């Protein structure tokens, strides 16, 4: 395929605009493609259509007032972003978190991760031309959104974590509901496996398509399922343990192939691992406070800079704070995983057929508001 490209380089190429409104880009991402017939010569993602400058907002409001912003970056796994931000500020200001609150954080974050992967699963198969799985996935996801709504108060743009704890305790109906959900999903996953994962059309569309090598992932800073699909055993929950994750027994699915199928398999396997974490957390859930006895009202981290990373559904989300000792951030850098994951698209898609490149793009699991911030 590459030989063909080289040979035809003198021929005229044309520019194809993919997006900014295109079903396969799930939001407003535009990709300027230089095409040689059906083959991609160069792909230039054009970002910023929904750029809101969250980082500047972080500098002109207090630490506490920035909390709702965290739910508005990645609207599909907002709780991880809540977690990254509050944990970064807690590290900087030395705020202690009760153990029960950390358990609640882990339970809700993992539920959110499952709902995010389910939506990705449905939307990804939709990109590839299979409409039905989306409806099944949304049905499952809906159950999770109901559970999360009952405890956080919102369905997508969560603002559930507070400095030093969480906003609301869970009740018995949440616990039984979550256990039932896990039971239900354990029945549904084999069905997805039989109907979708083992489907010959899906396999033909994904196997050996869009290979990403270990070295490419490293040079672009790809993390999360994209890196793990390239044989990189890296998960912040294991490699840089935070919260109460060390107390749970779970595996990190890693696939060596580096193709779109590998990234698909990583996410499908992660759903089961998240369920294992939730089960253990519910079993071990300690009694106690969910927030400090005396509410944290004035947050003034000491001068200096701090870094905190968490494993979001799409990779490593990092928060870099610079504090000047006041109640407002001097600088707040949000390192979003899909930004780095998408940046390798140009190199990875060269020489690919357009429909294959769309499969590659879908397997990156893009969330545009999180890229643009």
């Amino acid at each position, binding site marked *: 395929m590459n030989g063909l490209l080289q040979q035809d380089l003198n021929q005229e190429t044309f520019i194809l605009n993919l997006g900014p409104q295109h079903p396969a880009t799930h939001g407003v991402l535009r990709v300027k493609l230089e095409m040689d017939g059906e083959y991609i010569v160069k792909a230039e993602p054009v970002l910023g259509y929904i*750029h809101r*400058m969250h*980082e*500047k907002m972080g500098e002109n409001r207090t630490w506490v007032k920035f909390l709702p912003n965290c739910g508005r970056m990645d609207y599909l796994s907002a709780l991880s972003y809540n977690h990254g931000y509050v944990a970064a500020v807690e590290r900087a200001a030395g705020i202690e978190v009760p153990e029960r609150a950390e358990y609640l954080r882990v339970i809700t974050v993992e539920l959110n991760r499952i709902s995010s992967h389910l939506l990705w699963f449905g939307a990804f198969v939709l990109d590839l031309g299979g409409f039905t799985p989306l409806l099944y996935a949304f049905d499952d996801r809906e159950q999770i959104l109901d559970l999360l709504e009952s405890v956080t108060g919102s369905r997508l743009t969560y603002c559930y974590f507070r400095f030093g704890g969480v906003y609301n305790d869970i009740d018995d109906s949440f616990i039984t509901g979550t256990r039932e959900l896990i039971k239900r999903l354990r029945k549904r996953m084999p069905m997805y496996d039989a109907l979708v994962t083992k489907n010959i059309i899906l396999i033909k569309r994904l196997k050996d398509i869009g290979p990403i090598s270990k070295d490419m992932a490293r040079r*672009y800073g790809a993390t999360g399922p994209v*890196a793990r699909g390239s044989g990189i055993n890296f998960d912040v929950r294991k490699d840089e343990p935070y919260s109460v994750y060390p107390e749970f027994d779970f595996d990190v699915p890693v696939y060596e192939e580096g193709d779109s199928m590998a990234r698909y398999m990583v996410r499908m396997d992660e759903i089961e691992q998240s369920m294992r974490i939730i089960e253990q957390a519910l079993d071990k859930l300690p009694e106690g406070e969910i927030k400090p006895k005396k509410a944290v009202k004035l947050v003034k981290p000491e001068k*200096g*800079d701090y*870094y905190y990373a968490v494993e979001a559904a799409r990779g490593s989300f*990092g928060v870099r704070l610079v504090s000047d000792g006041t109640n407002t951030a001097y600088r707040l850098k949000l390192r979003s995983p899909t930004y780095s994951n998408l940046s390798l698209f140009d190199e990875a898609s060269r020489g690919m057929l357009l429909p294959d490149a769309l499969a590659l793009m879908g397997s990156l699991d893009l969330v545009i508001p999180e890229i643009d911030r």
Partner: protein
Amino acid sequence: MLLARIKEALDSLYDDIQETQEAPEAAEIETVAAEAAVEEPAAAAAEQEESKPEEAEEPATPPGPKETDYQAKGYHLDVELDPDKVVTAVEILNRENFFIESITGVDWIDDQQLEAVYDFNHFDELCRVVIRTRTDRNNPAIPTISHIYQGANWHERETHDFFGIKFTGHPNLEPLLLPEDADFHPLLKDFKA
């Protein structure tokens, strides 16, 4: 011991500063660092002699990579460098298979300086290295590292968007997140919407 190894390798970047302070220690240079130092010795040395005399007089904080309290700060190694040594330092990290987390800026308006902060981490062994460099706020320029880490391409474009830092040698320093005709840099402290 990745951390110790990388610290030693990066430490050699400060050899020319240490020479002016205390002559003897220059002998032991690691092989990795020796290669790296060859690549741009002249410019680095010249810059050092002009701009660093005040710092050289402070004996309390010797120049070099500093190990930080990971639990308190969230990173292991803090490396402050002159802009023209960033490329050499990043080449050392690249040889040790670090991956790039992000690049960003900080506007130190009181010092009339812009700081660029590079975050690196390692897939196999937890080791967060922060490289920081400061440049003149009125004419901010730092050499690009996008030829070493292709992922830096977008991070540098973003930092140029927000702070106006020119990454010299960057292949395509066009606005990325801001509109294509943007001539403002919103994260500068004196930016008014």
